[in-house]
């Protein structure tokens, strides 16, 4: 039913964009991660409303002048703002320094697709309409600006806003499988690229904090009263965050052709994605990590790689910081790689930027691609916390305190032998996903531009 599949073409990441509690942009994210200090702080956006906890990883105001670049900024939800800024950063990188969007999309907008993962869209804006102290009182009719706020609530709005902004006319879809959404969106995009349905996939996710998720996770008693500490012995729950992550993915030959003419950079390749379902419980993970293991195995198989630890450079784990989730995840990983799993460097982005829910897989894809590109695994904060990692029998090699420099075999080779990174995402309902990213050998300087 689809076009003939590409003959094992390689699909590369040629643009990255991010908005996080560290700030607006990939540089802010990367520098924040390398600092080893968490961006998690005190809840601000709806503090004082009676929530059980008061920590979050909140995005601050945009830098001066940024909002003015976007007509109608005030009418956009936070999630849409995050999405547009991250997309423009990623597309600007991919398209080269001169008019990135036009260079990337060219004259075939129907071959440009947008694949987003998300959980909340404009939920917080809708809450503002419905709050007792909000602008609607009993019997009032909705006014125009309230309608606009409500119109941002459907989950597909950020992706549609991005597609409209780019002028994309290919497949536009939002995956909303709870916290697995962002990584699943990578898989949907990879399918579309392999099938030749799209030539450019703008993949990502954007979510904002809202009362429903904040109170909801607190109702489950899975939120740490402090900042989350994934995989640590004393971990006590997750911390919610917000922001966006976006990657531009395209066939390698297409990227190289454009980079040769206009500059740009390839950060990593997306080798494969695996999905699974626990089919077990709505909120609790499978105790032995069955679904997690299936997702990792399927991602490696999709990438054509062996389930061998020597393949891996590092694992960017889902790592929410809840006692059950981290244990289940690690048991799943250990069931795939055996005791060798202890040799794999392990990092957990959520300890730094919080849990972006449906968009977490997207921002973690950005981090994973950057880590491969820069041969550096960012540390997980809280090095001073006592206690070993999650499972004493198979301890994880958690990167703590300082970044880990990766010595790639042969100076950084192809998509095997220690040059592959895994990123995992697991969600409510037992939806699991894992993505395998590959190190791309740096090409001569004439074909690659400078760092973003």
């Amino acid at each position, binding site marked *: *039913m689809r076009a003939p599949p590409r003959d094992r073409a390689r699909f590369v990441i040629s643009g990255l964009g991010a908005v996080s509690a560290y700030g607006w942009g990939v540089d802010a994210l990367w520098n924040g991660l390398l600092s080893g200090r968490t961006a998690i702080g005190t809840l601000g956006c709806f503090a004082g409303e009676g*929530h059980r906890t008061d920590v979050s990883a909140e995005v601050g105001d945009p830098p001066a002048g940024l909002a003015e670049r976007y007509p109608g900024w005030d009418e956009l939800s936070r999630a849409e703002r995050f999405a547009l800024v991250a997309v423009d950063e990623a597309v600007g990188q991919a398209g080269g320094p001169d008019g990135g969007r036009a260079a990337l999309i060219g004259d075939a907008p129907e071959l440009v697709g947008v694949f987003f993962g998300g959980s909340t869209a404009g939920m917080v804006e809708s*809450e503002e309409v419905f709050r007792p102290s909000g602008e609607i009182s009993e019997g009032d009719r909705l006014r125009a600006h309230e309608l606009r706020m409500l119109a941002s609530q459907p989950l597909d709005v950020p992706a*549609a806003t991005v597609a409209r902004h780019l002028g994309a006319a290919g497949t536009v879809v939002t995956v909303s499988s*709870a916290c697995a959404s962002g990584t699943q969106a990578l898989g949907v995009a990879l399918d579309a690229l392999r*099938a030749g349905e799209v030539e450019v996939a703008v993949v990502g996710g954007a979510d904002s904090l809202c009362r429903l998720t904040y109170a909801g996770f607190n109702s489950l008693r899975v939120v740490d009263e402090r900042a989350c500490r994934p995989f640590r012995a004393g971990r006590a729950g997750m911390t919610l965050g917000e922001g966006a992550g976006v990657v531009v993915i395209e066939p390698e030959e297409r990227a190289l052709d454009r980079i040769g003419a206009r500059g740009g950079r390839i950060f990593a390749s997306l080798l494969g994605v695996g999905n699974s379902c626990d089919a077990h419980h709505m909120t609790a993970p499978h105790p032995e990590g069955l679904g997690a293991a299936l997702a990792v195995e399927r991602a490696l198989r999709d990438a054509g790689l062996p389930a061998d630890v020597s393949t891996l450079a590092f694992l960017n784990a889902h790592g929410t910081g809840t006692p059950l989730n981290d244990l289940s995840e690690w048991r799943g990983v250990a069931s795939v790689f055996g005791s060798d799993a202890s040799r794999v460097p392990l990092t957990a982005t959520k300890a730094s930027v919080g849990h972006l829910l449906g968009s977490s897989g997207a921002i973690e894809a950005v981090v994973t691609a950057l880590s491969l590109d820069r041969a550096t695994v960012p540390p997980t904060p809280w090095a001073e916390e006592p206690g070993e990692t999650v499972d004493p029998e198979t301890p994880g090699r958690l990167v703590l305190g300082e970044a880990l420099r990766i010595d790639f075999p042969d100076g950084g080779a192809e998509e095997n032998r220690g040059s592959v990174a895994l990123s995992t995402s697991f969600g409510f309902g037992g939806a699991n996903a894992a993505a395998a990213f590959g190190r791309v050998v740096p090409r001569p300087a004439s074909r690659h531009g400078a760092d973003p």
Partner: protein
Amino acid sequence: LSEHEPRGPGSPRLVITGLGAIGPWGAGRDALASALTGSRTFLEPFGSSGPSERLLGFRSLGLTAGEGAGWTGRADDASYAAWVPARAARRMSRPSRMAVAAARMALAEAGLANAGSAGGDGEPLPPDFEGAEAAREAMAEAAVVLSTAYGPSSVTEELEEQILLRNPEAASPFLFAESVANAPAAQVARLTGARGANLTMTAREAGTLMAVRQAAGELEAGRSAAALAGTVDEITPVLQVILDRFGSLARGRRAGEAPTPRPFDRRRSGFVTGEGATVAVLETPETARRRGREPLAKIAGSAGAFDPTAPRHGWGTGHWMLGRTLRRTLERAGVAPTGIDLIVSGASGSIPGDRLEALTLRAAWEEAPLPPVVAPKAVTGELGGTQLAVAVLALAGAPFGPTPGFRAVDPELGVEPWSDRSGGSFPRPVRRVLVTSLTPSGTAAFLVLEHPAP
């Protein structure tokens, strides 16, 4: 882990072997087939059954039952209750129950579960089931890909009411777990043991076709041998009010009179809401043959598209671009426009939406005359994914009654919905059906189904 061979060019088409459907018209294919001939829209006023009027949006937004916008097509919970194990149903939201019921109907027809004995225990398969080995193998790695336009709205609204009008500590963990968009897909997997990919997609009304498309991708890539694909949505007062405030809904001619959607009619004033669930079982033809199952339909092609001319709150005008994508979809499917026997249109009565639909079809067909077009949303209402079920029924020879409310062709559109009572050259059997789904967000999707006979 087993591994299925990826399917390359020239592989036989994927097949649909089971179908479950729930809507305002009832549950199951017979009820739907009957509804399609009845020439009536299934509507009732809010408050006559179903959700209470206490929900915060309903109250604070000032809607009162009986207004034109106070009408909806509501699925009768009793019509599908027997398909959901009673114990499990108590831990599910209404959308989850509808999705599980539709999935179990589909699996029963496909011979992939014992759900045929309505009210069963929810276990995937009894040990002595005929063809159990092949069925078990297919289900162990079966994918579940569902879509939803608006998610589990009723539990979300109830949860927000707890948080916003009482206090955040009043939030119910059960409601929160069921408020996530993928709760229905997760419940389907939990009750069927499907451990393949479990995805929930949102693309408004186009989500149903996008879900079928993604599920087909799972099979083509060799990741699963079977997949459940479809959609579930419910209508709540808050959602109804918001749609009304955007001017999307059809109005009755007089106060208190039920609205009429009138797709393609020059007097159309908007759409009517419906709800429900539609789930199909997709398989590779090899798997179906090995289990001795007769397909209901073959999947010939599909595509997603986006109309970037769509404003943030309304329909676009990019029919030429959508038409180009539709034409390419047909080419990829190996089907000429003249090879389509019937179009199951997503037209709903929306003034700009039906216009975009008609002009998109005309752009794809260019100078050639359109084949017969039916617009089942006039019967079923918007949402619930019934179009997919209607297309499968059409391939099985189901007749179509007159489109409710249609009286006069809109000359700009030039499309008159077909019915078996209006005469004309309707080919039987229908060999190929095009399903279209355009949305006000700009998202669009197309699906081509073929008759299962060689």
